[in-house]
């Protein structure tokens, strides 16, 4: 009998192991779906702002996740599209769903965007101390069961809803994502492990709307639910320091663009078989990279002394490296190990990162309401895309009102206005003064402007309404 009975030691080993081994999420008992929902749903809200522009006003609503006790709410970046000027996003509000009642409406302020981490934040200005979730970098492995809490549109009272799925693949690429089998919540929904801990959020999918307020949307997302989410580690940096209202985050800029991964065949010709490498497609003149001696055609084999991240395929290499650079800080020195020509030994170039030049959304604007067009100051991308000298000036047309005098004159968005009534125009402010003076002095006369369009100029005569 004794032979068959397990010794006391044998019986103790599993017990000891359980005590001694560090506890992991997987080892803990999974919560029930009802428990997960009860724990996380109160942190899910709907966030609204009014987009107030020349086009009129539009209320846009998306999903937010309350992520701290101060009432800070995480939004996916695309909800606060970096193309929108901050001052066009007004009247921020948070809708907090309530069982059996209309959602609670709480005013909020826009903290700003964190373009490096692909997120944006708002904060409620009252009714704080709401339930929140805390994002930590937790494992996201294939086979893991995940839960997701989305938010229904207005017709569903912005109520949270629960789905469950399984991680079916890990994808690298510019933004690492996880593919799931089964449904996730709608865009902006939180993704959780079976301990109700956040492990990511649902990012933009090939189909489906960014906004809960999209009239085309309705409940269609329930028929073709999202399949991808971004794991927390990709945006965990966003929680270190929140953006401050009115202060754009300083983004680093090397001046290297059009990075592309070296294909296997090209790598072989350069004796780089088995090395992940990226070729520089272009170096923007006057930038840190150009000053450091980097040139188009050079092949990067190491970044900061380490091999490059290969992603899933060569097409991922360039964007992944670009993103890695963008995660660094302005003023930081970065090292590129580079092969300058076939057969040459690798050299290291040090580039002190500059600050990214201002983007169109920060440029000053002017709306010529009477003739129906609006313009903004030109910024770096405008001269760059048109292959103009970096100091070339002009105003970029951003909006043409349908059926307006400007539309009839065939002025078009993206036209770059360089002259008005024979005078060069340089900034939205001076344009506004000159334009208003001209319209006042000769209200019945046409405004003659010269624009740059696809490498050619066009003379455009806008006839005022008679």
């Amino acid at each position, binding site marked *: 009998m004794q032979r068959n009975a397990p010794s006391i030691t044998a019986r103790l080993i599993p017990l000891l192991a359980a005590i001694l081994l560090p506890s992991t999420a997987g080892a803990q008992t999974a919560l029930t779906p009802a428990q997960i929902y009860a724990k996380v749903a109160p942190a899910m809200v709907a966030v609204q702002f009014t987009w107030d522009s020349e086009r009129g006003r539009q209320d846009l609503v998306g999903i937010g996740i309350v992520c701290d006790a101060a009432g800070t709410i995480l939004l996916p970046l695309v909800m606060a599209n970096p193309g929108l000027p901050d001052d066009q996003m007004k009247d921020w509000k948070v809708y907090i769903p309530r069982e059996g009642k209309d959602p609670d409406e709480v005013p909020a302020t826009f903290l700003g965007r964190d373009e490096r981490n692909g997120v944006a934040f708002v904060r409620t200005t009252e009714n704080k101390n709401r339930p929140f979730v805390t994002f930590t970098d937790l494992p996201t492995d294939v086979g893991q069961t995940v839960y997701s809490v989305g938010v229904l549109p207005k017709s569903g009272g912005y109520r949270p809803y629960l789905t469950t799925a399984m991680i079916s693949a890990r994808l690298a690429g510019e933004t690492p994502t996880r593919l799931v089998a089964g449904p996730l919540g709608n865009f902006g929904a939180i993704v959780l492990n079976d301990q109700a801990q956040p492990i990511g959020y649902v990012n933009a999918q090939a189909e489906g709307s960014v906004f809960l307020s999209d009239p085309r949307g309705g409940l269609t997302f329930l028929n073709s639910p999202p399949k991808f989410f971004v794991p927390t580690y990709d945006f965990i940096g966003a929680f270190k320091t929140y953006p401050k209202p009115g202060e754009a985050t300083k983004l680093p800029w090397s001046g290297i663009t059009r990075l592309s991964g070296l*294909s296997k065949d090209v790598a072989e010709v350069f004796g780089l078989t088995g090395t992940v490498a990226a070729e520089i497609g272009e170096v923007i003149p006057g930038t840190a990279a150009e000053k450091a001696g980097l040139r188009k055609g050079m092949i990067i084999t190491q970044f900061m002394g380490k091999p490059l991240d290969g992603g899933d395929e060569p097409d991922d290499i360039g964007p992944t490296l670009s993103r890695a650079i963008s995660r660094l800080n302005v003023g930081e020195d970065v090292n590129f190990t580079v092969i300058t020509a076939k057969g040459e030994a690798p050299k290291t170039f040090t580039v002190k990162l500059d600050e990214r030049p201002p983007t169109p959304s920060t440029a000053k604007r002017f709306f010529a309401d009477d003739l129906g067009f609006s313009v903004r100051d030109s910024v770096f991308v405008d001269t760059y895309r048109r292959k103009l000298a970096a100091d070339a000036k002009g105003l970029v047309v951003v909006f043409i009102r349908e059926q307006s005098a400007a539309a009839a004159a065939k002025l078009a968005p993206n036209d770059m206005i360089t002259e008005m009534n024979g005078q060069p125009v340089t900034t939205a402010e001076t344009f506004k003064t000159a334009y208003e003076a001209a319209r006042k002095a000769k209200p019945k006369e046409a405004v003659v402007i010269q624009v740059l369009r696809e490498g050619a100029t066009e003379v455009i005569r806008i006839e005022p309404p008679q």
Partner: protein
Amino acid sequence: MHPTNPAVSRVRLPTHPTPPRFSTLLRTCSLVAILTAGCHHAPPRPPPPFPDASPANIVAVTGSIFPAVVRLDVAQEIYADGKRTLRREIGSGVIIDQQGHVLTNYHVAGRAAEIYVTLFSKERVKAKLVGDDHWTDLAIVQLDLDEIAQKHITFSHAPLGDSDSLKVGQPVMAIGTPFGLARTTTLGVVSNTDRTFYPEKQTIDEYETGQFSNWIQMDTPIAPGNSGGPLVDLSGKLVGINTRGFPGQALNFAIPINLAKDVAAEIIRTAPAYAATTQSSATITPGHVTRADLGVDLMPLQDLESFYEVDVNTGVLINSVDRKGPAEKAGLKPQDILLALNGQPVNARFPEEIAPVRRTISRLPVDQNVALLVRRGKQTLTFNTKTEKLEGAVGEERELKDWGLSVRDVTRAYAVQGQLDDDLGVVVTTLTNGFPAAKAEIKPEDVIRSVNQQPVEDLQAFMALYQKAHDAHDTAVLLEIQRGRGLVRAVLRLTATTKPSTKP
């Protein structure tokens, strides 16, 4: 609107080939004739402003013009799927002289590798492309005179009229091969004598066209296959070449014969001797029209005269100046007003006047100094520059069968349009699936800048480098490619070909 491209196999035959207007018009004309004959006391009538569509005239015209009208069965050389290939189409043409020159459209017979002409007698003979001009959508084909002589075939040619004398409302007849139906005659009237499509930029495939003249607009029914055929007045003179139309809309367009006369004469004058044209079209330059270019885009001054403080109907506005073109080199700027070329005034107040000014510029001698009188603000200035030869955006094209791609020379116009830094390199046009270039993920519009680290200046240099790699039996060819703003590299993996045996 589309060129009336023949596509006989793909198009359903029209159910009512005879337009109802034809019979109505005949009856009306007869009635007029009878009434006039019966009126003895009417005052003497002024001579008719144009020959009318009387039954007698119609019979006379068809009788005289039919023997000069031909059907063309053409195989045009085009590039598709990385290869030179042929596109077979049917069109119309008209014989214009005793040497058997046939006037037709570029979109019918331009780039033709193979042409068969069916004459009025229903006899079919071979023909050759003498030359073409996509800018005016015209081509000249010549009947094989030896074959004509052997077969004892006779043909006649159409007398050329004066398109400037056409009047709105004047009856005209179109004869051609709509949908492959040879020797089809239709009747209508001239709807407009100077139709312009300014500022639309028209093309045939990708070739620029229609910039140097206005159009004759007529309601004469034409259809795909009529292209290249004659439009004649009721005295039997050729007044236009039927070219375009809005299908089924009675809105059709012909190239005025006065333009076609000049172009035809120039193509025939510059064409190599007949015997020489038996060689492959790639090795000789066919007949062509050389035009001068100033690198400016023009705009009518209508209602801008007071803004620029110029007299009405004085000068033409410069809308755009091509990068690195002659006008830019001379210092011209957009919104300058061009007043005169070498002392000859150029005026365009209306869109209809733009094409004639372009034509005036095109007739300047190439590579010669030209004085441009320009109004800028309150100043009148003279700029001197040298004209350049007008070049289209579509460069010469070649196929590289074993690499599986076709490429074109990058022309200055292509570089200007695509905002390229320069006109070096060759641009990829089409690719063959499964061949090395497609496998290396080369894409249309990629500009190949180097082959095995040797720079590619133009098509000729590229072909030489290709030949070199080919002869060396390279199994890997490194290409540097400008793709949009970025430089990328690609390697073509070629299967090792067996070296040609040196033994007999």
